[in-house]
């Protein structure tokens, strides 16, 4: 069995959240009026995000991407690439990149987990040379986004469940694998793995890390 390193993208590799990516994409919709409407739609997700993913599971993630409904696959892919080039490529968190390089050096399979969508994080995964990417996918019908995410939706506190399923499918020994997370919502992912590590943790995760004696890595 092989070992892996699971990185939660948001917080460990980039400070940009899925919400900022969705908002940027919405502001680059085809029509001027359309842009305002889409932004308004995405703004509805903000309270759920602020209240915390632990409370609302994947609701906030689903609501975040409702604002891109009706946008073409072409536009989403190109804007995703542009968002990566403009806001993510040169802003990868140094600490996360260092941990990722170390994990690769130790022969671990690099797996990125993100509640953002593939058009945004796939270029990042490629840039970082990740082996696998577990993220959300926009449901498309006739090459247009329906505003829904394909099931199963990644987000909130369900990443741990996904890590377990992925590990069983790919013969990964979770007890010898590492999980890097940054927020309380990542705690279930981290507790599912043998070697959890908090990276720039928020207040709740810091407390959990202290309680469970998980290593903490800061900027």
């Amino acid at each position: 069995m092989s070992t892996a390193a699971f990185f939660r993208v948001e917080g460990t590799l980039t400070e940009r959240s899925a919400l900022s990516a969705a908002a940027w994409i919405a502001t680059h919709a085809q029509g001027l009026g359309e842009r305002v409407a889409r932004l308004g739609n995405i703004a509805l997700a903000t309270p759920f995000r602020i209240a915390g993913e632990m409370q609302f599971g994947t609701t906030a993630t689903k609501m975040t991407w409702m604002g891109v409904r009706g946008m073409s696959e072409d536009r989403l892919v190109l804007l995703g690439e542009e968002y990566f080039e403009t806001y993510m490529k040169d802003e990868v968190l140094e600490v996360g990149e260092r941990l990722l390089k170390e994990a690769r050096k130790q022969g671990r399979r690099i797996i990125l987990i993100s509640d953002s969508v593939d058009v945004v994080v796939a270029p990042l995964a490629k840039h970082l040379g990740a082996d696998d990417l577990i993220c959300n996918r926009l449901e498309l019908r006739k090459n247009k986004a329906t505003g829904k995410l394909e099931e199963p939706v990644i987000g909130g506190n369900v990443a741990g469940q996904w890590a377990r399923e992925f590990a069983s499918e790919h013969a990964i020994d979770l007890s010898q694998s590492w999980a890097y997370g940054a927020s309380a919502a990542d705690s279930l992912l981290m507790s599912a793995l043998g070697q959890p590590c908090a990276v720039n943790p928020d207040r709740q995760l810091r407390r959990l890390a202290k309680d469970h004696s998980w290593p903490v890595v800061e900027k």
Partner: protein
Amino acid sequence: MQRTDVNTSSSTPELSMNHPATPMKPLRETYAGKHLVVTGTTGFLGKVWLAMVLDFLPEVGHITLLIRGKKGESADERFTRIFEASPAFRPLRDKLGQELRALIADKVTVKKAALTEPLCGFSESEAKELMANVDAVVHFAGLTDFEPDPQWSIDANIHGAAHVADLAALSPKHRYVHVSTTFVGGMRNGEIAEVVTPGISPNGTRFDPSEELRICEAEIAKLETKKERIDLVMARAQALGWPNIYTYSKGLSEHLIDLRTDVVTTTYRPAIVECARNYPFQGWNEGINTSGPIVWLLSTSFQRFPAKATNNFDIVPVDTVARTMVMVTGRALEDTAQHVYQCASGHQNPFTFERAVDLCGIAIRRMHKRTGNSVEKNFTAYLDSHCADPTKTEVLGFRRMQKAAKATRSFLRSHKLERYLSPSLFEKIDGKRIQKALDEVSKEARSTDRILDRVDGMLRQYRPFIHDYNYTFLTDNLVIDTQMLAEEDRERFGFDIHDICWRDYWMNTQVPGLEKWSLPLMRNEKVPDDPPLPRLGEEKARRTGEFVIAGQPTPANETMVRAS
């Protein structure tokens, strides 16, 4: 003229079943030692085809090019300029250097010809001598303007083709490859089959093509102005189901050629030929082709593009057209060609106007951000275009903009400040400076009016193809022949339209290509040729680190050793 219910598209499945599907010999063998007579190699497609044949099939026996002199240049000079400096020949120049001259001298002969004259301007004995050992005639030449003076279009596209076919009839095998356009399908929706139905027009009217041509020319001769001639031929074209003069002349030509029994015709119909994917290099285009004005229009603040979102935008890269033309010519040389081939994208890999306009918006924003002025960077870049109904487009301001520009210019021209102000007041408020600013506004208004006029003309001409009709040109014959190609030829000469990712093509090939090769022409700027192929002495000097005194003859003793 009578109407008939003949549905030409219904014959497609049968045609496919009847396709002989004979495996082809390697094209090197097919072309080896063959003598081809070719017209139209100074055009966009003809150049690429010729460069490909010389590049990949040097076993070809000989190619005689029929070229007319133009603008003080002889036929020879025109072709020399093309192979020495046209980007289409860049791969050959890069590969062969000076040896390209030897290859051209060995394989190519240029003959001055006038296609609009009987036997292309050759005497009967000259024509017989020329055609005595010719294996096939390939006719690319044509006039692609949508609304030219109709007689020019008839001369180039109908009489020109007939004269070239007359030459082909003098050759031993009578093989004639005729390049037409898919848009001869006319004003119809749906599938357009790979067939010619001589004497039945696109709208099903039975007519006599020779008689139609005779009457049309006789009527044209009676009219004095170009506008009258255009109106007449447009009306005749539309009565038969062709949307404009170009498709009428090309369609009529197909009918007339098809009725001939003295030539074995293979008709090849490309759709809208656009930027190269790979050959001669990614993005190359020449002149103002169909999508150039469209991209240019979308790069302005004109926001609503009057196309039907779901209609096919049937574009094909020039190298896809050229490579399949090489294959089809090979088929003709083997005497196994189908009667008609269509080279289009809509059947195998459709691309719609909705996608094109959507992608254009993003590509143009990036272009403006990269190279635009401050207005383009901060304003126009954020305006994306949509497909819109043409009638609504007018309501949404296009006509009003034009009227406002005209009114502004007319007002400013007839109301000079000096007329309304006393000389002392004029001087006091620095009237000269204000008048100069107003003159600038007037100039801008004129330029806007002209641009809008041009846009209006373009949109009117394009409307049948971008809005009124949605065609799917069937391409079964190219697909089947690709399967029949020898293994070694399939990758190089097969029909590769299904491989195209339109998003990638549009963003990384088409729009950058147009930006470099076509949009400057829309702005009345020049697109430079490549640096000319150096003479022998020059090339040697470059290799040995010497350089040549500019403008001097180039024997070795006149070069200067570079001071190190």
